[in-house]
């Protein structure tokens, strides 16, 4: 907006509202960020029948599915997080083993499903930010329904939504980093398998993909001082 010098745009993508902010004088570059987000949606959305993930989910056991490089990159990151969290982080949600051989995704069991959900959203945000920076955008942010990344010389105020009554409360400011928030409650989109009945879990981390993945680990363990947070230079809150 004119007051702050930032132009804001929002589109319905990734099953949520994706917002971006960039200096008004550079707003013509917003299209690059949208293209990056749409590419991730095409590759990794469960709901897009042609995506790599939807093709995996529909395939029988022992299928070998060719995946695009961006999908392979997120799958490798997911596998790494699974290993380091000793299986707490699991994009198959226990439905069956998978493996990745270069750009080939192998399904080991019938009924095996993958949902990259949050980390794909985080990846989309990171790639959108990379596209903007690559085009010379000096500062801004991308927020995919609570997966937020801020870059450049700006500290972005973040408000926390009240899930019971609507409205929002000032909470924090973040600059040059990412913040992912998930809400866990009966009936909410994100479901907890661990110890917390109802809470917001937020993680600040250097990248959005990492921040989103780490919210799952904090949610499942209830541990805001989980060693993986420190390893990745991240901080967590339950609130």
């Amino acid at each position: 907006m004119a007051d702050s010098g930032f132009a804001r745009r929002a589109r319905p993508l990734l099953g949520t509202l994706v917002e971006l902010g960039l200096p008004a004088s550079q707003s013509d570059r917003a299209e690059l960020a949208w293209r990056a987000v749409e590419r991730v949606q095409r590759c990794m959305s469960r709901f897009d029948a042609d995506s790599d993930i939807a093709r995996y989910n529909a395939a029988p056991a022992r299928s070998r599915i060719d995946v695009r490089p961006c999908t392979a990159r997120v799958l490798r990151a997911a596998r790494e997080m699974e290993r380091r969290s000793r299986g707490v982080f699991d994009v198959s949600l226990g439905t069956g083993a998978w493996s990745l051989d270069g750009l080939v995704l192998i399904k080991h069991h019938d009924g095996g499903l993958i949902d990259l959900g949050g980390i794909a959203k985080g990846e989309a945000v990171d790639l959108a930010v990379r596209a903007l920076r690559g085009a010379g955008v000096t500062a801004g942010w991308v927020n995919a329904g609570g997966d937020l990344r801020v870059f450049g010389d700006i500290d972005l105020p973040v408000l926390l939504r009240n899930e019971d009554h609507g409205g929002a409360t000032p909470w924090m400011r973040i600059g040059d980093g990412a913040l992912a928030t998930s809400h866990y409650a009966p009936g909410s989109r994100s479901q907890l398998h661990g110890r917390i009945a109802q809470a917001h879990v937020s993680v600040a981390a250097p990248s959005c993909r990492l921040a989103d993945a780490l919210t799952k680990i904090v949610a499942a363990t209830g541990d805001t001082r989980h060693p993986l947070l420190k390893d990745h230079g991240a901080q967590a809150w339950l609130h």
Partner: protein
Amino acid sequence: MRVLIGAAPAAIGVLALAPASAFAIDYLSAQQVQQLMFAQADRFDARELAFDAAQLQRIEAASGVRARSARWSVHVARKGEATLGYVVIDQVIGKYELITYAVGLAPDGSVLQVEVMSYRESHGHEIRLPAWRRQFVGKTASAPIKVGEDIANISGATLSCTHVSDGVKRIVSVMDFARREGLLQ
């Protein structure tokens, strides 16, 4: 990474006690969204579509989507005598939010672009009240409703955009019907 906490995270009570305020962002005015979607257009002609009950039934039967409203406002993007496409603006209501969005359609009725024009988050249940919704009618990006700092972002449960997606489908079917019936000439 720079993190500055306003309300201490340990003080859950503080968060619960702090008053939640309404939150509103204006992204684009009607004029801005038209120009963004059809930069080549030299003018936008307004068309009011009014459907009778029988037409609404036919739209519903053809698309499986309820047309919801009998009146639709369409802006036709033109360059000289050529029709470049259409812009339709609509509003949908979610759990606590009211979203105004615009759909840009090609002359053949396919969707070119969807842009959110404004996002309003209420506190409490006033979102269901017509008076609350009316106060935003006619607001544009040049007259933003300022709530707190105007670059603030919102975090929390992932907002579902199903109602926007359903709205886009509805607009596609309404426009398809209007085109077939020659109402956009």
